[in-house]
Structure formats: structure tokens, C-alpha cells
């Protein structure tokens, strides 16, 4: 089953969740096999910001029942290094490239959109308005009016397909999705991690994670992700990229049946980098 996502041809319906697969590191570990056996039908970059970000202090992970809580903090080398160093390496992948960006306001997002506009290697932009570790993401992506205002200011800064990644940490995700549709998004992706707290076993009441709170991912959130996918599919006509705890083709099928056009695998890739390829093959 090939998929047409906003004009981008995908060989199968499985892409990666932003920030869950590092092509450049994987090539160091697995060599050419990464490209030869690339598991995703498109590659979504980690979140790129204008300035470099070091990320949160460790510990950054906490294992839970059927999943984990992370507090990574969007480490990246910044827009200029991404364009100069990383994009040429990502562009040799055998699949279309989607660049995920985040800005703390419309001016920043506009700068990011304009910088990507002339880069033909990039097939689409995914806008992160949903990271629970960063204050701006939560504020903009959890409020329909805030999101409308942002998108209205930046939509015309790019001619590339624009995928808005929704946060699950909102009162009504369908209303946020409808706002994205009305303000010119070409697709939505959901869900990002659910805001979560990992209690330090040795220090009652204190946070385990260096960043304070984190985001829960993995099979533990799959039913929540499916409910939000159903709600958004009923509310809008845009293509949906659905994710949240997908670990098998049967899991993925449920999201496609709920109205998603494509799905993304994230945390399961941590357990097996080839998992998404198996799921994609089974759903093709």
C-alpha cells in the first residue's frame, strides 16, 4: 500500500516519530545497512531550533510499565549547523525527508520556515507545537486560538507541505486540530508524549528526571493515542499521521482503521531499530 501524504509518495505507511531515530549515529553503529534496510518510508528529523540546544541534564530516562518517560530537552545543533552539516547527510537517504522545527513565537517559526524554503532536499515541514518539555510547545499547541494566531502569521512563509504535530496535553485535541486545518495546515500528526512525572525512588517527592517533568511514550499510551486519532479524524478532513505506542502491524492497522493516512513508530524503534520496517512491510 503506497501512500500519498500531501503530494509526497511513500512506499508504505510507516514513518518515524521525530526525535526517535538518528540516521547519522545509526550509520556509525550499523554502517551502510541503515540505508540499505531503511525501515521508514519517510524520515522525520529531530526538532530543529534556531539556536543550538544542549538538552536537559541527566537522568533523561525512566522506564515504566510498557513504556518510558523521557526528558531529553530537544538537543540539536541549531538551524545553521543543521543546514550545513546534517541536511546533506540526511539528503542521501533513500526516502523523502521531513524537517521538524520549533520556535517560541511566530518570528522564530518564520525564520525557520524561510531558511528551509529553498532547500529542495526537504519534502515537507513538521511544526512541533507539542513538546511537553518546552513551555512554548505546551502553550501554543494546547490552545486553538494560540495555534491559529501562530499559523496565520507563518503559513505563507513556506510553500512546502506543513504538518502540524499536535500535543495530547490539551483539553480538546479535536478543537486544536480544527484550528490547524482552518489556519492552513496540510496535515496533522499526533500524538506527542503525554506529560508525566517520574518519582525518584530514593528521594520521596522529588523528580527523578534532570529536566523535572517528562513525557510518557510506548505501549502505555497507545489507547490514549487511538482515542485522540479517532476524535481528530472525525473533526477534520486533513491527512493524519498517527502515532503513540505502535509496536506491531496489528497496532498500526488500528490507527489506519481509525482514519490515519500514515503512522509513525518511535519508542518501539528503541527496542529494535528494524521494527518499523517489519510493520511497514506487513501493512504494504
Amino acid at each position, binding site marked *: 500500500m503506497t501512500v500519498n501524504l500531501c503530494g509526497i509518495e511513500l512506499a508504505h505507511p510507516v514513518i518515524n516519530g521525530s526525535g526517535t531515530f538518528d540516521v547519522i*549515529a545509526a550509520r556509525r553503529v550499523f554502517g551502510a545497512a*541503515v540505508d540499505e534496510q531503511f525501515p521508514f518510508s519517510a524520515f522525520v528529523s529531530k526538532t530543529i531550533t534556531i539556536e543550538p540546544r544542549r538538552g536537559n541534564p*541527566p537522568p533523561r530516562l525512566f*522506564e515504566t510499565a510498557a513504556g518510558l518517560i523521557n526528558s531529553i530537552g530537544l538537543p540539536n545543533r541549531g538551524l545553521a549547523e543543521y543546514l550545513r552539516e546534517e541536511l546533506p547527510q540526511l539528503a542521501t537517504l533513500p526516502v523523502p525527508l521531513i524537517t521538524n522545527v520549533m520556535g517560541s513565537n511566530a518570528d522564530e517559526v518564520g525564520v525557520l520556515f524561510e531558511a528551509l524554503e529553498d532547500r529542495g532536499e526537504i519534502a515537507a515541514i513538521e511544526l512541533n507545537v507539542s513538546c511537553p518539555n518546552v513551555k512554548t510547545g505546551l502553550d501554543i499547541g494546547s490552545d486553538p486560538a494560540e495555534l491559529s494566531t501562530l499559523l496565520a502569521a507563518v503559513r505563507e512563509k513556506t510553500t512546502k507541505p506543513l504538518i502540524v504535530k499536535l500535543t495530547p496535553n490539551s483539553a480538546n485535541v479535536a478543537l486544536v486540530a480544527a484550528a490547524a486545518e482552518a489556519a492552513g495546515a496540510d496535515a496533522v500528526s499526533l500524538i506527542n508524549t503525554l506529560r508525566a512525572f517520574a518519582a*525518584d525512588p530514593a528521594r520521596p517527592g522529588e523528580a527523578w528526571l534532570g529536566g523535572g517533568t517528562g513525557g510518557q511514550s510506548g505501549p502505555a499510551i497507545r489507547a490514549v493515542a487511538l482515542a485522540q486519532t479517532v476524535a481528530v479524524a472525525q473533526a477534520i478532513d486533513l491527512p493524519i499521521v498517527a502515532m503513540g505506542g505502535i509496536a506491531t502491524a496489528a497496532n498500526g492497522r488500528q490507527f489506519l482503521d481509525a482514519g490515519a493516512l500514515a503512522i509513525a513508530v518511535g519508542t518501539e*524503534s528503541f527496542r529494535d531499530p528494524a521494527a518499523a520496517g517489519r510493520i511497514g512491510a506487513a501493512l504494504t
Partner: protein
Amino acid sequence: MTIADSRVQAPFGAREVAVTTTEQIGPYRVFGCRDELGPRPRAGQFYMLSSSDHWGAGSDERPYLPRAISVLAADDDDLLFVIEVVGPGTERLAQLVEGDGLQMLGPLGNGFSAPDEGARAILCGGGIGFVPLAMMQQELLTAGREVTALVGFRDGAHAAGARLIAGAQVATDDGSVGNEGLVTELLLAELDRDSNAVIYCCGPPRMLDAVRAIGVASGAATQLALEAPMACGYGACYGCVVKAADGSYRRSCVDGPVISADELAPDWLAVGGAK
């Protein structure tokens, strides 16, 4: 100083192998498996391991993620691993018996580099940290190099692990086996005798930090094998970072686990690592 990148690359994707041998040595569970698909690893590299069956629903409804486990020895297609039970993941791995399925990804990470020509290697291990050092010892002895092995354990029961690293001088916290005291005392004595030696270390965070400080202060080239909880082991999750001397965060799994002592920030333990 940067450790040379001598990693052996892994097949892409997790593969299933069968457990072929098991042995209990004191508190340590040693198990072997036959890995026909993978290459021979270098000392200091590790694998992400989980059981094929019943991985999950243990204590605390875990484990969920595979566990990063060092290799003790590699001979043809046979790999040996050592487990000490510290949580639900290692508990399940320690239950594996011959014939059980093991999910494996690896070899992963960058291992140890050989010392410069003529320099002696001092291996300094703490607890289960002796595992990658035992493999390094075999690599060096095979190459005809001079090696001194020092290992510290908390007590006599754990000191049973010294059986797995040939000719090691042992220190125990309670003095029940070998020298009473810290393995770093043995290390300082060895450095007094040979200041050109190269130090190879793996052990619990505080011991690793003590050896880091000794290495930096003495000027001896020092290769530290870090241990950190990881979700993926191959650079995807950015969860296993340590603070580097330049202030950046480095991933233990791909930028390590072996890192030069002078590349680690002096306050790396205070930045979350001590928990």
C-alpha cells in the same frame, strides 16, 4: 585525548539467538549464546539484550526496554555475558536457561583502544565492571602485551567474580578476600611503579570518578568504560548522556561507552550521574 574509533559495526536490527550455557559464580550469572549472524565484538563493546519470552510484567510491571550488557568473551560465534541482578531486567536475564531465546542488538558502542607500543596496561575494575576488562585482558595477552589486572569487590561473595579475570589482584571493602580497602589504592601503587602505564577502568560511578581523577592528576592515559541506563544503545534516544569537559552532553552508547578521562567533565557525577 580522544579514544580511536575501533568499533565493530552491528547487523541492523535485533536478532534472536539461543542461550547455550549458564553458570552461577557467586552473585554473578554467566551465560553463553551462539551468535552466527553477528561479527566478533571488540572489548568494551556491549549488546542490548532482552528475553524472547516474558519480557515485562515482572516487578513494577517491568522490564520494557532491553538492557545494555557487556561481553565477557567472544570465541568464534560464542558470546559470554555476565549479569548481576539489580532490577527487573537483569532479574529476567538471570533466569534464562539453556535453549531459551535471547533478543540481541549489537555489538554496540566504541570499545577500548590498545596502549601505545611498549606501554603496560593496567586494568582496574569495580564489581561487575571487571567484565569488559576481562575481554580486554584476553585481547592484549593474545597480542603479546603486558597487562596487570586489579579488581575491587564489596565483599567475599562478590569476589568470586575474580575467577573470570586471570591473575587479578583483588581488593575487598571488608578485607575478606585480598587487600582490605579500595581497588584505587592498588592502582596508585601500580602507577608509582610504572608511570607510563595506560589505565583501563570500568566500575560503579564513584569508583570510575576516582579513577578519572587519578588519571587526570597523574597524566596517565586513562580509558573509562561508562555505564548508563539506555533506551536504545545506538544513538537514537539521547537518553544516556554524560557531561563532557567541553560542557556538551555526549551519548554513552555511541560516543562511548569508552571515553578518555580528560574528556569527562570533572563534575559529571554531580550532573545527575550520582543518582
